[in-house]
């Protein structure tokens, strides 16, 4: 009984599959079962013939964030999966299990023993019976040496396998994806600009965009996945210019994602100056990516604090912060004994675009600040270095911001969102 249904359904999917197999014509003359076996063999060898494996662009449902899984299929029937994501506490993790390509509703790739990474998306826990609602059996729609397009068997979710180039190690790929994520995924609101039309995008940091027309209250829910050169929306969307867009590539300045099918459609962020002057999230000094003008007094401060307080109040981090009752300040926090000290700064928009001036209030410290200030000389050295006029450079995510002195471009510091 099952077989009959399978055969009928397969016939329609065979049309799609065979269009991209090399033996297109002869396939059509073969009975369904033989065609299916043929497709299975071809897909199996396509999977195995990628020595470096594939990036599986996994979406559990049409409303869930995209995850990259690295997958390598072996001719022995074994599959190795690797990932580094929040589901495995952002630790690089590998898991082995087995797979096969079977004939069901057309050719189906199934991971039929438990894999600690892949089946995280379909384990029916939290909530019980449901879990993340993902698939682990995939109906293969099209396949080629570089791309395999599949649908989850149960949910129908679109999932692609992209071949990993042979000159890239998995560590390279993961590093690329991680730095791309840092460039593009942040908590600030984004804008989808298409010609004269602008829509608001929320949800960038959760990898599920909520795209709304200004003034409208029904946003489009559109998950995305970070790729090596930008992002890919789960499905193509129609723009105000009547184009279809899905892939976006990060601009060389890293501040924009440009649709590859329509360069006049892009995703951009809010202006950096109002962002940073209104920002209330601490941004930490990145001493590995700042010039010696700032790092020398910073290291001096760290050393002096260490010796002055015998390791009881070591600098945990240096940051620029904002408190409603105090305004902006250069701040440090100490460990293991936790103390926070604030030294007032003024951040003001400058006439030039993307430019800000920083000033300070001499003796403008809080109570802790005053105590430390009188005991530790290098606080003054670091603090007085900060004023200046800076051009700001940031990525789309605004997870990090570089301040470059407009009079001396070798004088700069970088802040990372904490």
């Amino acid at each position, binding site marked *: 009984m099952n077989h009959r249904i399978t055969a009928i359904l397969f016939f329609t999917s065979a049309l799609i599959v065979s269009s991209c197999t090399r033996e297109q014509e002869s396939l059509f003359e073969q009975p369904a079962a033989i065609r299916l076996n043929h497709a299975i063999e071809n897909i199996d060898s396509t999977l195995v013939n990628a020595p470096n494996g594939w990036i599986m662009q996994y979406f559990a449902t049409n409303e869930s964030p995209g995850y990259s899984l690295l997958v390598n299929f072996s001719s022995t029937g074994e599959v190795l999966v690797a990932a580094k994501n929040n589901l495995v506490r952002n630790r690089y993790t590998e898991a082995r299990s087995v797979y096969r390509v079977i004939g069901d509703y057309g050719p189906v790739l*199934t991971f039929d023993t*438990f894999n600690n990474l892949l*089946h995280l998306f379909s384990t*029916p826990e939290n909530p019980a019976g449901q879990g993340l609602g993902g698939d682990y059996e995939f109906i293969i729609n099209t396949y080629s040496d570089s791309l395999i397009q599949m649908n989850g068997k149960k949910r129908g979710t679109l999932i692609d396998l992209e071949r990993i180039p042979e000159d890239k190690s998995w560590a390279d790929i993961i590093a690329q994806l991680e730095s791309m994520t840092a460039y593009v995924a942040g908590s600030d609101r984004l804008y989808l600009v298409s010609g004269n039309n602008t829509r608001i995008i929320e949800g960038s940091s959760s990898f599920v965009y909520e795209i709304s027309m200004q003034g409208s209250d029904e946003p489009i829910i559109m998950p995305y996945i970070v790729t090596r050169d930008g992002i890919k929306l789960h499905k193509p969307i129609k723009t105000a210019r009547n184009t279809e867009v899905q892939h976006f590539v990060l601009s060389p300045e890293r501040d924009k994602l440009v649709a590859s099918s329509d360069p006049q459609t892009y995703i951009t962020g809010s202006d950096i100056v109002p962002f940073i002057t209104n920002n209330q999230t601490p941004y930490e000094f990145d001493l590995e990516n700042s010039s010696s003008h700032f790092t020398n007094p910073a290291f001096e401060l760290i050393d002096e604090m260490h010796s002055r307080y015998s390791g009881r109040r070591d600098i945990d981090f240096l940051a620029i912060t904002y408190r409603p009752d105090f305004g902006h300040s250069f701040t440090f926090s100490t460990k293991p004994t936790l103390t926070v000290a604030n030294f007032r700064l003024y951040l003001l928009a400058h006439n030039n675009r993307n430019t800000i001036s920083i000033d300070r209030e001499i003796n403008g410290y809080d109570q802790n600040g005053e105590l430390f200030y009188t005991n530790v000389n290098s606080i003054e050295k670091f603090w007085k270095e900060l004023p200046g006029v800076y051009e700001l450079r940031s990525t789309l995510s605004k997870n990090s911001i570089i301040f470059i002195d407009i009079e001396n471009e070798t004088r700069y510091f970088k802040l990372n969102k904490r």
Partner: protein
Amino acid sequence: MKPYKIIIFLFAIALLGSCSKNDGFTDSIFIDTEEFNPDSPTYSFDLWLHENYLKPYNLAFKYRMEDVGSDMFYNLVPASIEKSKQLAQLTKFLWFDVYAEMVDEEFLKKYGPRIIHLIGSPAYSPNTGTILLGTAEGGIKITLFNCNNLDHRNVNMMNEYFFKTMHHEFAHILHQNKMYPKEYEQISAGDYSPLGWQYLSVAEAARLGFVSQYSACEGQEDFVEKIANYLLTSDTDWNNTLDMAGEEGREKIFRKLEICSNWMKEKWGIDLDIMRAEINRRQLLINDDFFDPNI
């Protein structure tokens, strides 16, 4: 799993027959389309299953998920290879070998299931808030759920989730071949409730003379639950049930158990007490070193 108060078996028992009259089954029923590939990561396990299940018992022990045939109603995941290896060895040791020793190898080859299918996750039923522990289709195929949570150090859990299911199901097959005396169901006649059983507490069920809630469903279930629970419940838990039952319930449990014992003895030549002791003895031998690292 905790919010799920009621844990049930749901058995889809097809009409009796097919498995009792299929002495003619031969290995050829399962033509192995996949020949064993020595490079396969599961080669030694597949070979072991072939030697220990397929050859002696004509049973396909399927640890790879077959969603094709399984219910799309449930959200399930496959069993892990590691847990499958453990469960395969435990099932042999605590079920098949017990019957082989107490009766003979032919017994399970003749009456046992043809397929055991492992599933990694529990089968949650959102409508009733219950978990399916296992299903059996006409005694031919037994499906065991929740295998990824197998904990060989927790005998109670293993019994609850796996071995009671096996013995429960197997007892069905036996009574389908040789019916138990009619008087059994008269003892609790009027207390069976095919729809209401899940609202009984364990203590309420015990007071009515049932050793589990599901026993109150109907006579056949009562009968097989009695056997499965007697075989696999520790002395402490068994005595607890008897305590909860009170005088009246206890009396019913004893009368029914006696019918079970006599029937097993007379119809199948199996002494229920000796079998219970044997299972218990074997369960005490399960520890970290029990499993063969070469499988």
